[in-house]
Each structure stands twice: as structure tokens, then as C-alpha cells.
């Protein structure tokens, strides 16, 4: 299991378009992936659930935690982390 905590830099947080892009990206991995809004302290959501990701209410500047568990967990953390924090911002944990 791998996890990362980062600050969301996506324009407009995880509303609408970025949320859909995040879910589509998560669909490409076989690992179980969860997203948690650390700033708001909401329970974590399944990264494959668009309703879950939208309900996390992630705004730009919020801190989130991504947890991946499975054969491709490393790649999942890196790809999804870059999607939210921007390229080169993901150092792992």
C-alpha cells in the first residue's frame, strides 16, 4: 500500500471537469484507490466514484490524501498525484 498527501493546485479544485478527469485516470489502474479531503476531514471516497469524488468537496488549496493498494499502486500514486498537484510536485511519502 502506498499513499501521498499533497496540496491541490488544479484550477477550480475537483469540481466537474477535473473530477471527471481524476475518475477516468483512476479507472486506468488495477489498484484500489481512495481519495480523502484532509482539509475538510471528510471520510475517504472511492476514486472510481464520480459522486464520491465530487462529494469530497475538494477546492484548490485543500490538502488531500491518495491511498492506492495493488499491483500498480506506485504508478497510480504518481499519475494521480501529478494530476492534482501539477508535474514535478510529487515526491512520494
Amino acid at each position, binding site marked *: 500500500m502506498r499513499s501521498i498527501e499533497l496540496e491541490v493546485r488544479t484550477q477550480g479544485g475537483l469540481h466537474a471537469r477535473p473530477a471527471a478527469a481524476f475518475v477516468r485516470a483512476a479507472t486506468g489502474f488495477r489498484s484500489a484507490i481512495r481519495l480523502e479531503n484532509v482539509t475538510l476531514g471528510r471520510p475517504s471516497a472511492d476514486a472510481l466514484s464520480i459522486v464520491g469524488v465530487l462529494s469530497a*468537496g475538494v477546492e484548490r488549496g485543500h490538502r488531500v490524501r491518495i491511498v492506492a493498494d495493488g499491483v500498480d499502486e506506485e504508478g497510480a500514486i504518481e499519475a494521480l498525484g501529478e494530476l492534482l498537484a501539477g508535474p514535478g510536485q510529487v515526491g512520494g511519502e
Partner: protein
Amino acid sequence: MASGEEAESRIHTAAETAAAQLNALAARLCELNRPGDAEILEAQALMAVDPAIIDEAARRAREGVDPGVAIVDAAEVSAVLLAGIEDDLLAARAADLRDVAARIVRVLNGTHLHLPAAPSIVIADDFPPSLLAEMPRGVLLGLALAGGSPTAHVAILARSLGIPAVVAARGLLDAVRGAATVAVDGESGEVVADPEIAELQVLADRQAVRGERDRAASARRGRPAATSDGKRISLLANIRSPDEAPRALEAGAEGVGLYRTEFLFLRRQSAPSEEEQMGAYRRAMEAFGPDRPVVIRLADIGGDKSIPYLGRPEEPNPFLGVRAIRLGHESRDLLLTQLRAIWRAAGLAGVTPHVMAAMVATIADACLLLDLRDEARAQVCAAGQPCPERMVTGVMIEVPSAAIMAPELARMVDFFSIGTNDLTQYVLAADRGNPSLVRFQDALHPAVLRTVAAVIAAANAAGIPVAVCGELAGDPAGAMVLAGLGVGELSAEAGSLDGVRAALAGVSAAQLDALAAESLAATDAETVRAAANELLGARR
């Protein structure tokens, strides 16, 4: 249990089919060059296969619940969750989700909605956006809804597909019941039941005129405004609230040249909080993104827009009174709060903030603005909040003394924005609100234009840009004169940008220069307007 497993597998199949349908509709919108609208349907496709919903529906089906009922109930749990979050966008998503559930149920039951096959006007209480996208082009002639709102997805989609639509028409269903023919005018918001032949002719004429206008304007939309020989002029929009951002972007605005924040301050008992202001500014900044500036004008209040909570006495001459930046002495906290909100909003939106102040009359006024700006930034930084490095800071030129001192002011600030309405009233000393003095209210008066020319010369010498954000900028004749004088940015109501873009595209830079020279040499506004209109008419 075989039947439970079968029901579960039927749910999965139906969900996949619904998602495929929605993705196909999204692809169609992309082909129509509507990627923004396609996103609504792409998000719906993801909802159709959302494991949180489908797994819950499958669980209920295994327990013996009818698959259709299971889908609707499971979706409703999530819809209530989304609708409960205090966010208008997410509330709209709840409606989208219910629409998705209904679609999955139709696939499950093998039923089809009876969508009209012949060209029709649809009259309904509400209409989901995915159905609108599903109707073949040419079949849906118009849409009239008793419910909905202008910002609902269905209204946005209808607008972008060019389908005349009237929404939120209370009492509509009773009004058209039994009518054999219905006409819809989406621009005027009229729905006519059983129109007379004469009425139909009026509507048809309007349709023809607008079609011609829209074809000409939309051919240029999205392309930057320029003269026929390629001299660029930036067109920006004036807004009062971030709600106007979509309309401005749709009209091809390259940003906001004037965000009138005073509307946040009016009609209330106490000043808006820093948080409330920050939310509004941030929404505007994020709507336009990092490449399209949003120039926020510090609240232009006092004067004729009096505010009870400022506790100021009534003034005999409000237009010459304590208003805008002049409040910086007596109500320093009001402006500091607004500036902190702007710094913080920009920090969160990841953009460089643009700010300007109205009623700047002296060098001391400009110094006050810069001091307040820097003090607000220090406060935001001290609180440990994210804050940009710099704020692009400008002054409005509308008081004659500021125009006269423009060479010195230009070396202090990053840009000028000329407010032609107030500049006209102050240069000609004629109250804007006095109906006996309307003959003095023409911003094309040479005295105003010569002032504008002097301000532009001062700005050019200091290397700063000049914008015009008054009504003159949105008037095609006025815009041509201003562009000829050397104004590089025009900011006006979104609805007037098409007309200005078309006017500028029809003339060359040399023609504009000649018009400007003629205007500066004129001795009255009528001569200037006649010259501009002649050029405007000649290009048609």
C-alpha cells in the same frame, strides 16, 4: 439465488449501455464544437457506472428489489448527498444524476421516451439536458419550460445548440393547453399560443434579421478583434458579479476590464465580510483563468450610491463628494478589507490580481491606493495565507485633475482606465442625472476626446496601457474613435462586443487614424458622431 444474480447482471449491463449512450451523445456535441457542453454528458456517463451507485443497486436487487426501483433508490441516496452540499454546481449535478438513473431504467425496461419525430416545439415542466442532446438536429424547433432557470444545464445547452428556449415561464402549461400552434421567441422570452398570421409574420421577420446578425457576428467571435489590416484591439467585458462570467466568455471577452464590486455592498445592513468578498472575486478569477485578467474596481460607493452602514451624512453634491478612493481616509478598513479579500482570492485562484480605484484626483490619492494595497498584502502574509507577489494596480481617469496630472500618475501605476461617463460629466460640469442637461452628456465631445488623447500620450510616454471602460467603448462609433486615438483595450457590456468587433473589422488602421484626427479638430460632438457614422456606414 439465480434471479438475484440475474437482476444484478442486468443492472450492470444496463448501466454500461446508458454510459455508452451518454458518451456517444457527448461525442456528438464535441463534433458540433461544443466541448464544454460535452463535459456535462461525459460526467453523466461516469455517474452511470459509478460503483457507489451500481454496487448499492446490485445489493438491493440481490435482496429481491426490482432492478429499476433499486437503481432509482440507490441514485437518490447519492443525489440527496450531492444536493445537500452547499454548492450550486453540485446541486445541478444532483439533477443530472436523477436524469442518469431514469435513463438506466429505460434501458432496463426496454422502453423509449416518445420523442417527437417531426419538427416540434417541446412544452414541458422540465427537460433533462441529455434528452435535448439526443433529439436529432432540426427536429427540436424550440423549447418552453415552466421550470428551470437560465443557468440550468438544459438552458445552457439549448443556447449553445441555437435552439430558441424560454425557461422559468410560470403558468406556461395552463396558458398553452389546447393550443393548435405555439410560437417561441427565445430572445424576447415570449411564448405565443395560437398566433395570428400578422404575429407570425413579425416573429419570422425577427428571426431572419437575427439570423443574419448572428451569422456575421459569430463568424468573427473567438477571433481577436482587429482592424481590416490587422491592428489588434483587446475587447473585455464589464461585469457586476461572477455569475456574468459565462456570458462574457461566450461573447469572446478577453478578460474583464471593469468588475463593478459595489453591487456586493449595496442593499444590505452591514458591509460584506472578507470571506464573502473573497468567494466572489475568486469565482470571477477562476472563471477567466490565468490568461484573462479580471480588473477589480474597488467599491465605487458613496456619492449617489449611498450606504447606510458607512454612517456618512447626506451630501448636497454627491458626485463631488466623498466617494470611491476618497473613502480611504474616513473608511480605511472598508478598503483594506476589500484589498485583503482580493489578495487572498488571487492566491487561491493562482492568478495575478488586477485592481483599480475610481475618483482618483491627485497624486496623494494614488499614493493612498498603493499604501492600502501594500498594507493589505502585509496583513495577508502575516496571517500565513497564500498571497501573490504583485498586484497590477491602476487608476481610473475620470476627474479632470487626474487627466492633467496624467504624466506623473503614469509613472506611479501599472495602467490607466478611462471612465468616459464620469469624465464627460466632470469635463463639461453637467450632472449625469439631470434631464435638462442631456445635451452635455455626449462623450464624443471634442473636449472629452482631447482629454483622452492627452492621457494616452502621457501613458505612452511612461509605457503603460490605457483602457476605456465607459459606455462609449461599447458603442461601435465611439469604439472606432477611441481605437483611432490609440486606446488598446475597450471594455463594455458583453452584449455589445459583437457589434464593436464587427465595426473594427470593417475599417483599416489608417481610416481610424484619419477619423481620430478629424474628431480632435472638431468643435462639437455632432460633427464627431457624423464622421464616425459615415465611416461605419461606408464599410457596410
